[in-house]
């Protein structure tokens, strides 16, 4: 009985498919879908030689919800809440990409104040996204405390974002032609308190984690991505900027009012996990700068156009693509409409999807612990990858 069981061909379709290419005397290890450092439900099949990785293959689909099919059975307005669920880290970027694509298609003008509100809330959301990543990444590397400090700061931001969006995680507060609500005095007060507070926290992060020799040894010179590799895989966001490619959609394809503010695109040349780490920490600082300037120059006006599309609104025929810079990279939404009630097709371009596809190549020959460090440095949000 026993031996029979041991002799059985084990593993599901993917494991068997992976095993075909395995070398002799290696260990096939299933990391995930339930594993502490795969952030939910990513599964990676590893071929190990000792603790060295010979080959790796990420298996996706454990959180697949077929958002693109859902789009075809809903009207455009009804599809908006889905955008809050694609990526729980930076949902406002998805809100914006979708709203922007539809506005482009329907030729809807967005009031200036709404653009500012979008910038403010989206940048605050970017900070929450990076804080979540920061805490979780350090947790992956074995330190338990920083995530709590990050969440302390993140909670303050969630309070702030709750005022303007009404929810704490899966925001769907953008509307075609504006945002769903204007800000109030409490919001202004909290944001103005938060910006100097966060600036005092960043040196603490640096002292506790960034400068720590144990952490530096864990992430420096680990997971090198060359610029060509970035282009071949289409990686964007902090992953690309960590490899010396100064590509930020907010600069390269300026949308909204970003070019009115003074901010820098942080770029690090080294291409290792530390570079990606530093890019994200610098981005928190830049986002604070943007929010500060936007709050100072917030124009009066409406937060949404007068005749915002109702749920029965039909988009004109045509196709539009809109890309924004999300916390993980380029978030793109392509809307194709045949003039009917529901969109003909919606394509969601998830940055994490392209970023994760790098992993198989980058992890070859590294240690198991390094694989965790590389995986974390990609800033994965699985629902966004699986859609």
């Amino acid at each position, binding site marked *: 009985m026993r031996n029979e069981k041991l002799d059985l061909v084990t593993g599901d379709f993917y494991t068997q498919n992976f095993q075909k290419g395995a070398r002799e005397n290696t260990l096939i290890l299933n990391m995930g879908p339930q594993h502490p450092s795969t952030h939910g439900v990513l599964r990676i099949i590893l071929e190990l030689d000792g603790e060295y990785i010979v080959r790796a293959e990420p298996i996706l689909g454990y959180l697949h919800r077929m958002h693109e099919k859902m789009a075809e059975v809903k009207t455009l307005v009804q599809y908006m809440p889905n955008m809050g669920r694609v990526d729980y880290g930076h949902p406002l970027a998805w809100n914006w990409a979708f709203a922007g694509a539809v506005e482009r298609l329907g030729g809807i003008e967005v009031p200036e104040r709404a653009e500012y509100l979008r910038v403010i809330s989206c940048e605050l959301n970017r900070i929450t996204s990076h804080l979540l990543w920061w805490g979780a990444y350090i947790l992956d590397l074995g330190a338990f405390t920083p995530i709590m400090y990050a969440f302390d700061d993140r909670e303050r931001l969630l309070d702030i974002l709750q*005022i*303007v969006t009404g929810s704490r995680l899966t925001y*769907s507060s953008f509307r075609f032609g504006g945002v769903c609500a204007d800000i109030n005095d409490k919001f202004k007060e909290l944001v103005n308190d938060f910006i100097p507070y966060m600036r005092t926290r960043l040196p603490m992060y640096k002292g506790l984690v960034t400068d*720590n020799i144990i952490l530096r040894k864990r992430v420096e010179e680990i997971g090198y991505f060359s610029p060509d590799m970035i282009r071949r895989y289409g990686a964007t966001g902090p992953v690309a900027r960590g490899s010396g490619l100064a590509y930020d959609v907010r600069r390269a394809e300026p949308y909204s009012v970003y070019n009115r503010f003074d901010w820098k695109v942080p770029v690090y040349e080294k291409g290792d996990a530390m570079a990606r780490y530093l890019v994200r920490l610098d981005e928190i600082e830049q986002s604070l700068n943007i929010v500060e300037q936007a709050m100072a120059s917030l124009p009066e006006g409406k937060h949404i156009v007068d005749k915002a599309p109702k749920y029965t609104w039909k988009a004109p025929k045509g196709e539009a693509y809109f890309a924004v810079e999300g916390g993980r990279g380029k978030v793109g939404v392509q809307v194709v409409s045949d003039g009917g009630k529901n969109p003909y097709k919606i394509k969601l371009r998830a940055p994490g999807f392209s970023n994760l596809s790098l992993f198989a190549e980058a992890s070859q020959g590294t240690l198991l612990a390094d694989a965790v460090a590389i995986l974390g440095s990609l800033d994965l949000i699985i629902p966004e990858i699986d859609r």
Partner: protein
Amino acid sequence: MNPIKKFFQTIADLWSLIVGLQITGKYFCQRQVTVHYPRKEIDPEINKTYRGHIELVASPKDPTKPKCISCLMCVSACPSGCITVVKSKPPKLSPEEEQAIKDAEARGEKVKKPSAPKEPAQWKYDFSLCSLCGTCIEACAVDSIQFSNELYVVGTSRNDFKYDLLARLKSQAEKRGPVAESKPEAETKEA
């Protein structure tokens, strides 16, 4: 790197470990930031714009009745199908009245049948399906729906999240008591 530099680098690296201990040690001595929930709650000012589950807005005349005209716009607008509204039926006529109408019709007169009252008979809402998007609120023709501020919603079964919003409105009105006359109006303004 020359050995002296390397030596100082090592010292600096080791010092970074002390810095880390200093930071956690400092926070160890400081006050905690956790809000002990059942005993304490966060600043209610922040929760004013919180979008909890939806609720009906009372009509200015009768705080126990909603403004709703049961046009079913919200039902068709809802992307997740969590709203069920049943229209009121026209009042039942007594046989004599019916007979009278029939007679009048037979005479060729134009009779105005008593129409159904423009108010819902039932207003059911399944919070477990709702994605809190607000499409129904934007679709509502008479501003009869709004987000409640219910932050602390718990339940032990799916059925706990199926609300009868008409009953909720009624109980709210009763709770407020006789002084409630002005309150619903204030709320509608807000909405």
